[in-house]
């Protein structure tokens, strides 16, 4: 378990993270999300004691990282696949890490086997591709068979096979009861892997909830309908309390009503329906909307946040205001 309380880090004039408080629970994958520059890596560096917090505390299993008796057996971390001496072979890299924590040397071979690098164990790490480097970093993290694993942007730059491999690995690790804490700036990635989300923007926690709650609480759902008699449908929708807008493609986008409700309305209005598609906003859209106000560097392109969530007088959804903390319940 990782616990941050009021964690704050300032580098000179830059406030990297501010008053972060969160708990990473065991037995599930906690996604740590935020746009680039939000403070994800800084937070992980603070957890590992690489940087000292300006204020606040962060503990691992109740202790400061520096106090852990055998750090590798409690926390395995992959911060950066390049944090390896390129002149050292993969096997020797792992050996020197194992020795530092009095781990049996055969572990080096075991984890190399696990990540599929046995064939290149004697090769110098400097010649490894990015994907191999990531695997070596993961091998190092698994060396001490730790109960907590942290991965910083593990799928960055990987090919689809590598991405799938890491996803499955993280799921298997969480299923074994371990704490998995993984950062990403890609919402779509988290949608596939994470059980729980901690979203940060500009160094602040802006959401801490389950993935399902995050989507439900931060996006507006819509329904695409295609009918030869749009006027009747638009009126029916308006009477039922929804909004309907033509999407310019001959279809109508309805907000504030479920797909079932729209289908029933069409039936009672006796108009044919050629398409009825519930358009569930993706995590990506919800994330963009939530962090729109907290992106540090934004291209000056016009156009609102994707996902089209702003329109709605749907009433049922709480307005996702930019920096407002969103704490959906259900921490399970």
């Amino acid at each position, binding site marked *: 378990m990782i616990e941050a309380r009021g964690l704050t880090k300032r580098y000179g004039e830059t406030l990297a993270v501010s008053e972060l408080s969160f708990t990473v629970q065991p037995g599930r994958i906690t996604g740590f999300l935020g746009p680039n520059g939000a403070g994800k890596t800084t937070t992980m*560096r603070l957890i*590992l*004691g*690489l*940087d*000292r917090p300006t204020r606040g505390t962060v503990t691992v299993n109740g202790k400061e*990282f*520096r106090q*852990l*008796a*055998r*750090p*590798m*057996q409690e*926390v395995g*971390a992959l*911060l*950066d696949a*390049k*944090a*390896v*001496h*390129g*002149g*050292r*072979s993969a096997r*020797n*890299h792992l*050996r*020197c*890490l194992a*020795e*530092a*924590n*009095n*781990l*049996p040397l055969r*572990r080096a071979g*075991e*984890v190399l086997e*696990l990540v599929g690098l046995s064939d290149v164990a004697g090769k110098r790490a400097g010649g490894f591709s990015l994907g191999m480097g990531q695997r070596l970093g993961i091998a*190092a993290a*698994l060396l*001490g*068979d730790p109960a907590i694993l942290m991965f910083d942007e593990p799928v960055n730059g990987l090919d689809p*096979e590598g991405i*799938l*491999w890491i996803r*499955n*690995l993280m799921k*298997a*690790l969480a299923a*074994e009861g371990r704490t998995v804490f993984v950062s990403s700036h890609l919402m779509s990635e988290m949608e596939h892997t994470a059980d729980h989300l901690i979203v940060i923007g500009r160094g602040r926690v802006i959401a801490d909830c389950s993935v399902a709650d995050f989507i439900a609480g931060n996006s507006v759902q819509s329904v695409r309908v295609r009918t030869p008699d749009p006027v009747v449908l638009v009126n029916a929708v308006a009477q039922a309390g929804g909004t309907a807008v033509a999407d310019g493609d001959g279809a109508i986008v309805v907000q504030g009503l479920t797909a079932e409700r729209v289908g029933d309305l069409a039936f009672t209005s006796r108009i044919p329906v050629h398409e009825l598609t519930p358009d569930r906003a993706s995590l990506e859209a919800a994330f963009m909307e939530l962090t729109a106000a907290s992106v540090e560097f934004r291209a000056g392109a016009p156009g609102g946040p994707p996902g089209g969530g702003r329109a709605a007088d749907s009433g049922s959804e709480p307005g996702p205001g930019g920096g407002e903390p969103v704490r959906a319940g259900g921490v399970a």
Partner: protein
Amino acid sequence: MAATAQVTVARHGGVPASGGRAGLGGAVRSELTKIRSVRSTYWTLTAMILVTIGIGALFSFGHAQAFSQLPAGQQARQSAASIAHAADYSLFGLILGQLIVAVLGALTITSEYSTGMVRTSLTVMPRRGTLFAAKALVFGAVALAAGLATSFASFFIGQAILSTQHISTTLGHPGVLRAVAGGGLFLACCGLLSYGIGAMLRHSAGAITASIALLFVAYILSNFLPGSWAQHIDKWIPFNAGAAIWENVSAPDMFSPWAGFAVFAAYTAVALAAGLILFRRRDA
């Protein structure tokens, strides 16, 4: 979904439940593996040994040649002084050997920063004082062993060359063993001084430049000081203080061998202490 990775991270007793707190012993073994598993260690040490021996041999050869061309009468008068300096001649290569061991000392820590390895090292051993000490102990031991081998090899090869003119000395002569063993101590100290500077600067090129400036450039510049200043300042120059231990005949205005070495060791201690303080305090 393609094939799911079959993961067994070896909960099944892959790692013994406890082996005590990770401490200096493990850190020392880890650093020993680190220093042995990169080629730069071997290249640098080989360069140090060859350059030091080579220059000592060349210097001894030059002196033997010069001696052989003296008229017989002058040879007789010169012989005793030549024998007194015989150890110094053969160890003259240390003046360049110190620079090479300084490179290795700096790289011992700066390569961790240039490669990013330091972040990995600190997540497996977050107690920074322990990591710093383990590195210093391992590098210091390697530098001392290589330094002693270099110094003794230089001595024996130099003496073999000087003996052709019967102006060689032996380890049994007063002060000679101290000078030759002192050469090894001197090299180890140069390396550790540079290691401390490396910890302060965290940058290979910067740390190597700073060490060479301190060990070599300061010594050269000191030769241009006005005589009245030189008398008081020269002996405090790091190279002059450190070299006192391997110069069998103390030059005037210089420290005695052990006093000079103590001054040099004190400089090294200051560099190590400053490096340790910064290593502990700074964000990695």
